[in-house]
């Protein structure tokens, strides 16, 4: 079967974005600092990728306060889950087709 790389979602091209989606796929919600620790990236880098994914509506943001400090939690939306799973399937197919 012919699989085209065009089917790979452009939104997941960056490793950081793929990492964010993977972490959120395995957890209900994660706050900014947890994501930062898992991904080992700078604040600015992470924030811009989160913004990007938010724009695509793949992740949702939940803002609250803990001890009067703002606490932002991120979670995967249904759309995000769909896109992420499709991305995984395409990756698998690409690997198989190139063997």
């Amino acid at each position, binding site marked *: 079967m012919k699989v085209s790389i065009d089917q790979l979602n452009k939104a997941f091209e960056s490793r950081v974005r793929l990492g964010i989606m993977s972490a959120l796929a395995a957890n209900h919600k994660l706050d900014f600092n947890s994501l930062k620790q898992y991904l080992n990236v700078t604040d600015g880098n992470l924030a811009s990728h989160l913004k990007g994914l938010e724009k695509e509506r793949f992740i949702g943001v939940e803002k609250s306060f803990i001890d009067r400090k703002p606490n932002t939690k991120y979670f995967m939306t249904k759309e995000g889950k769909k896109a992420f799973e499709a991305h995984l399937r395409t*990756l698998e197919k690409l690997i198989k087709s190139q063997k």
Partner: protein
Amino acid sequence: MKENRDYIKDLAEIRSMMERSSKFLSLSGWAGIMAGLYALAGVYIAYNIFNFNPTSISSGSNSFELVNVVILAIMILTLALVTAIFFSYKKAKGKGEDIWNPTSRRLLKSMLVPLLSGGILIILFLVNGFIELILPLSLIFYGLSLYNAGKFTIDEVKLLGFVQIGLGLLSSYFIEYGLIFWAIGFGVVHIIYGIYMHFRYER
């Protein structure tokens, strides 16, 4: 065009991130082996030097020796904990990870409730002189906390929890063999688990 290897790497990274962000994988087999050895040494000292045998002590207990046994138990627990943290720290560092991360916090939280309830219950029983119940209870509550923790680390920890609970229940029935069951659970089982973990995940 992207190479095939890149896609495999992508998948591998996704997998590793999903695992890493939901499970604490830096538990070391060595921690289990050492904890088991400490426990066996503790049982030896308690039995041979402090004459501790919970069935004989409950009637006309010798409070001086009981205090010694409690101090010994606290020392062993501390030693085992420090060892576990040390080996986890080493293992996490080797992988370039932080030992104090959201996953390890979740793991600790999941252990804390059963451990603290068990710990308080044991102290209360100690105060009231139900000495023979302490050994089985420590096995049962330790097993419960491991079972709970199994959700946030490798699956084998769950099995380890089951074994400890089982030994604790048996020990509650055969109460006169409390010390033997305790030595099997905290000593022998820990060592077997540690060796298994070491060969399975660390080589």
